[in-house]
């Protein structure tokens, strides 16, 4: 683990969650441990059924772990009921109370905490301002748009000043443009309030744009925790590399692992320098990944060679599919487009693929 600046807001230690019993038992979380730092925008990323929502529900208190501890600033809260945890949730469906106004919704938590009326009023006003909803304070929640409901849900969860804010795929119900806006808005709110955010999503783009750190989950396990750059450029294993972005998988023999670098000899015979994932166990053959935009297509000879098979135009860039000589695998190269210029290749052309030092990553599995 790298150095840990600041305190930990949440520490999850060896948490298991099993649903059902006996033969039908399913482990939704399989001994998960992770630390989430104070004031951090932390994202749990993974496909549906990976256990990310289960973990969030355990932190919120809607469910109890089968084993393990959940510490909030050092205190074990794993068995506390939700109304005794200074943690609030923004629900996927927003779960706004339909029989209350926007302001009543926002004030609900403070009221339950028996705050003085004046304080509740002031805080609600402050929250309305924070999410720019002052003009709709007395509306029913059914009379406002989806994006506005989203803001109310946020304001409601932020109003009691929780130590940690949990967000369960809060943007999934919004359309594309609104989602983009809310991503920026969420980031702004987090900066402004300084509250620790734990954000659950299956959308890798969302995770990469907003997070300070990301935990990638699959089948009840956390596979990798790191900054968006780490996760994208230095995936630890095949699942992470495949789930986030597009990537090319190559088989190589590995030699001379030192300082996180290794010499990888590709099937074509070329040898490149590649960074090595944490937890890599030395072995003769391993998988090496190269992002399509980190490789370059050349007319002459390079580390790899093959025949151009398909050219797919995407507007900002072009994907060129190359059938590799020898292995017969497909390798994708992404080229930035320039105005009024083709990509310089045509289907059937012979081409070389240049992979620079540090463009490749050796996976641990």
């Amino acid at each position: 683990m790298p150095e840990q600046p600041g305190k930990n807001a949440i520490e999850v230690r060896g948490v298991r969650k099993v649903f059902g019993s006996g033969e039908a038992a399913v482990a939704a979380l399989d001994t998960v441990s992770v630390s989430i730092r104070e004031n951090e925008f932390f994202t749990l990323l993974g496909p549906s059924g990976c256990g990310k929502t289960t973990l969030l529900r355990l932190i919120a208190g809607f469910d109890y772990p089968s084993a393990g501890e959940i510490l909030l600033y050092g205190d074990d809260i794993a068995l506390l009921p939700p109304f005794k945890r200074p943690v609030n949730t923004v629900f996927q469906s927003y779960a706004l109370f339909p029989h209350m106004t926007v302001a009543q919704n926002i004030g609900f938590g403070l009221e339950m905490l028996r705050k003085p009326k004046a304080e509740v009023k002031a805080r609600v006003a402050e929250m309305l301002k924070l999410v720019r909803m002052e003009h709709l304070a007395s509306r029913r929640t059914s009379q406002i748009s989806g994006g506005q409901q989203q803001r109310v849900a946020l304001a409601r969860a932020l109003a009691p000043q929780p130590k940690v804010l949990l967000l369960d795929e809060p943007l999934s119900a919004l359309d594309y443009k609104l989602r983009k806006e809310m991503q920026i808005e969420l980031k702004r709110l987090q900066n402004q309030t300084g509250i620790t955010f734990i954000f659950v999503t299956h959308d890798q783009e969302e995770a990469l744009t907003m997070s300070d750190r990301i935990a990638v989950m699959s089948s009840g396990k956390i596979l990798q925790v790191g900054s968006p750059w780490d996760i994208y450029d230095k995936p630890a294993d095949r699942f992470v590399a495949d789930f986030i972005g597009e990537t090319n998988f190559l088989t190589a023999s590995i030699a001379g692992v030192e300082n996180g670098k290794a010499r990888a000899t590709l099937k074509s015979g070329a040898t490149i320098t590649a960074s090595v994932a944490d937890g890599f166990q030395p072995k003769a053959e391993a998988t090496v990944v190269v992002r399509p935009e980190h490789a370059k297509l050349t007319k002459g000879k390079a580390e790899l060679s093959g025949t151009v098979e398909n050219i797919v135009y995407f507007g900002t860039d072009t994907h060129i599919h190359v059938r590799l000589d020898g292995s017969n695998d497909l390798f994708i190269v992404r080229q930035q487009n320039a105005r009024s210029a083709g990509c310089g290749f045509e289907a059937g052309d012979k081409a070389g693929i240049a992979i620079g030092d540090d463009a490749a990553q050796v996976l641990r599995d």
Partner: protein
Amino acid sequence: MATAEEIARAADRRDIRNRWYLSAPALLTIFFAAVGPLAIVLVYSFLTPGSYGDVKWQFSPEAWVSVLFERDIFDDTLSLAGAHISIFWRSVKLAIITTLITLALGFPTAYFMATRSEKTRDLWLFLITIPFWTNLLIRTFAVLQIIRNEGIVNTVLMKLGIVSAPIQILYTDVAILIGMAYVYLPLMVLPVYASMEKLDFRLVEAGYDLYASRWQVLRRIIFPLVKPGVIAGSILVFIPAIGAYVTPSVLGGGKNMMLSNLIELQFGQGRNWPLGSALSITVMLIVMVALLVYVRNAGSQEVRHG
């Protein structure tokens, strides 16, 4: 210290216990004022009738024997009780015919309602709901006024010169049929409509696209899809019809008895509580058979859709 697992299990147990406490008032009320007494009826059906009603606490299978048989007072031989059997037969017959009439009228009505526009559909539903919640006695009384000899039907027929003397409808089986069909029609329309409303008319379009005629679409597509509603409606009509009390007593007069009137008689002038009890249990058995048929049909229906 308790493990998380134990605490979760304890919480589950507590939840289930609380759910029992919460349902206790409803369950106890129904047990003491509806279900439990049925067991007493069963016990009474095996006792000896008291001379002034009620029972003597003495075991006797006589009540069950006399559900279907008559004992000759001189030589003690058994013969089929013609009166009882004809009442059984009439009750079952009238209940089945009522079910068929309400189906024949209710199915097209439900179809008509389901094919109206979204807005007017609620209005039609409302129009069916009103009679449904209107006092059954009042509705029977309304039918009585229509069909009696001085009623509007006979008056109109005579004024038009179609008949010279009023047709005697009241106090016949036809009167009971008209009355039951009238009061139970909404019970058929509502469930049929409920499944008809969910019918996806793109399936009907697909049927026509594949060369089906109107009749074939009705028989091969619409009917199979709304069959659960038809079965539910038939049960909802059959159960109260077999045990109908108000309609036969008002429209059937004293002679055209149905099972419920026969039962009432045993607790009134008949002073034979054990026989009344045995007859009541018999009605319940008929209803239970009908319900079993329903459950089996509904069950197989789900399998086919799943």
